[in-house]
């Protein structure tokens, strides 16, 4: 898990480091962490009253707006390891192709009935080549499930914007290389909760925004 954490941290921070310039950083007030039962420790996505969220709570902070879509986007991965999706929550830009490699010694059947993307990859083993993949071409929240392992849940948050970042478990975030202008900064907290704040961005400035 630690490895997985460092992996997505490096992925999300990579564009910020390259572009630098205008920065927004701050903190999102996350809901209190429910200490999950031991058996459910590996479950990253939990449903409570029909609301999906990560456990421990994490948020995705992104700059909303219409940005030109790049010709090619890097391919992302959600692996199935130890009967869980890793990462449990993946924010991607619209048009991103996501691969679902099976790292377990068993069959998985990844599917989604979510309005943003319905797909069914069918059953496949770890040695399936090419690695089954899906292009997410509509913004929205996609719930990943496995038809064989009913407890498995994953979330892919498909966003219109290339400017997004995940908070750490304390709620801290940092967005770098942002364009100047008036935008709306949004914080996705769970499937039913997204907070937003209007922001005025100036070049090479660092803005501090907190989501209470």
């Amino acid at each position, binding site marked *: 898990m630690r490895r997985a954490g460092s992996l997505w941290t490096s992925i999300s921070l990579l564009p910020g480091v390259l572009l630098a310039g205008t920065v927004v950083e701050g903190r999102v007030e996350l809901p209190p962490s429910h200490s999950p039962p031991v058996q459910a420790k590996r479950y990253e996505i*939990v*449903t*409570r*009253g*029909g609301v999906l969220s990560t456990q421990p709570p994490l948020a995705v902070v992104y700059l909303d707006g219409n940005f030109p879509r790049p010709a090619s986007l890097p391919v992302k991965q959600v692996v199935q390891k130890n009967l869980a999706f890793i990462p449990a929550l993946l924010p991607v830009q619209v048009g991103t192709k996501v691969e679902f490699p099976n790292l377990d010694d068993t069959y998985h059947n990844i*599917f*989604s*009935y*979510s*309005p943003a993307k*319905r797909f069914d990859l069918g059953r496949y083993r770890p040695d399936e080549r090419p690695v089954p993949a899906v292009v997410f071409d509509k913004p929205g929240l996609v*719930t990943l*499930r*496995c*038809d064989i*392992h*009913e*407890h*498995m849940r994953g979330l892919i948050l498909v966003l219109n914007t290339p400017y997004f970042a995940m908070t750490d478990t304390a709620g801290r975030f940092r967005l770098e290389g942002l364009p100047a202008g008036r935008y709306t900064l949004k914080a996705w907290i769970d499937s039913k909760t997204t907070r937003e704040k209007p922001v005025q961005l100036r070049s090479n400035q660092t803005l501090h925004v907190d989501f209470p």
Partner: protein
Amino acid sequence: MSLPGPMRNKGVAGFRVRLFAVMMVIVATLTTLGLYLAQRRVAADAERNLQQIFQSELASLHKLEELRHAALADRCDVLAAKPRIHAAIEDDALDLLYPSAKDELRDLMESEEPPPERPAQWLHARFYRFLDSRGRVIQPPNPRDVGELDPKSEEQLALRSLPETRQIGYLLENGGAIDELIAVPIFSTETGDIISALVVGFKPLELADKRTGMKSGIWVNGRLHLPSLSQSAQASLNKRISNAVAGGEREENNFRLQLEGAPHLVFYKRLNPQSLFPPAYEICVYPLAPWTAQLRRLQWQIASAGALLLLGGFFASHLAAVRLSAPVKKLALDSEENREKRERAEAALASTARELERSARYSADASHQLKSPVTVLRVGLESLLARDDFQPEVYEQLSALLQQTRRLTGVIDDLLLLSRMDAGHLKIESASVNLSEIVDEWLDDLSALPDSPEVAIEKQLPPALFVAGEKRYTSLIIQNLLENARKYNRPGGRIRLRARAAGSEVVLCIGNTGRAIPCGENVFERFHHSATPSAVSGHGIGLNLARELARLHGGDIRLVCSENDWTEFEVRLPAANGAAPAA
């Protein structure tokens, strides 16, 4: 003397008829009672028997249904665990719900080929539908896959809210087919919430009793499904059941009903108590014809038994009548004799009474008739005696005649008094009378009598001794006794008088010397004369009169002793109230 023969025979025949009538009434009552009890018993037996059949049928039905429910519940649990079902419901992809469930529920639906076994058939559903979170039916994209239903019937699958437990319902389709509905909640495996419900329609299980000619059906929400009955019978039964169900809260009952011209027993029982679906009742109609036939047979048996009993009773009563009438006959004869005797005695008594009355009246008349001439005679003699121109010996004779006349007057007075007493005309004017005074007066008179012998008088009397009576008659009693004591005394003898109070009576004893009264003589008899010749004259009614008077006063006179030159009488008279001092 006895009644004539024919009359006696008539009496005995009457007795026999009455006895027979009583027996007939008893036998008829017993027969009627037997018939009534038998009828009730047969009816109760029929009802109980049919009730048992009904219950056992329902019980076996319930067992099969349990099987079906259990199988279905298992399926629903499996379904609920399916990620695709969850995904369809939770991710708002209801259009994918039926396709996701299709594979899972494929074998639930009826297969094309006939099932190998009956129980397997029961587990095949006609249709199924899912309910959304508000209990509404989720429309299937392809109704052919999930069992087609007309829209109106489909609407009836909806519930007010998702059920927490299994719900049983019945659906009467427009085409007339009936379905059993089982709604099973689907729980989220993650949160435990009810996320949906599966409603499955089965062909209802049918009661399989073939012995009793029973017809069964189902009543749902005011409509009756019992196709084996005629339309009119269905209508009347439906009305009756609707009333019964609407009227009472009873989930189970039975009643009798005339259906298609024959009596039937109808049972109904709620099939889905406390269900969210409309109430449904199992209806069983049992023909009562076999029971009626059995009842008729039993009635014949009891009636003929009653008739036999009556016939036997007739002979028995005849015999009993003959037996019983013999003593009765004898009793009748005896009572006739008794009656004759009694009548004779009564007649004799009446004639005696009449004679007695006549004689009493006669003696009274006679005394009255005698009194006047004697008075004339005496007055005549006295006037003759008052003259002084007769020879001295004439005076002596006149004086003797006058003496006899006086005696005659006394006798007549006594007779008159006696006859009045005999006729019951004499009434005592009771008062307090001083007995001592009367005795003293009479002792004075006694000593003054000219021909009295020399006798000594001993008197032991308290100065005042009061009795209750009429002075005149009390005086007469004392006079008679004292005169006797003097009359039957011997020269130089004595008379002793003693009196004392004894409780409520006063006892006076008068004794005198002289010849004793011979044994066996009743001196109290009227006109009694001593068997032994005596110098003393008496007309023989004095003692009798005295005793009658004493008895009239409530007392008596008896001869105490008469021997050895001593005769003593005892007079008992009631003491005057409070006036008699202690002796």
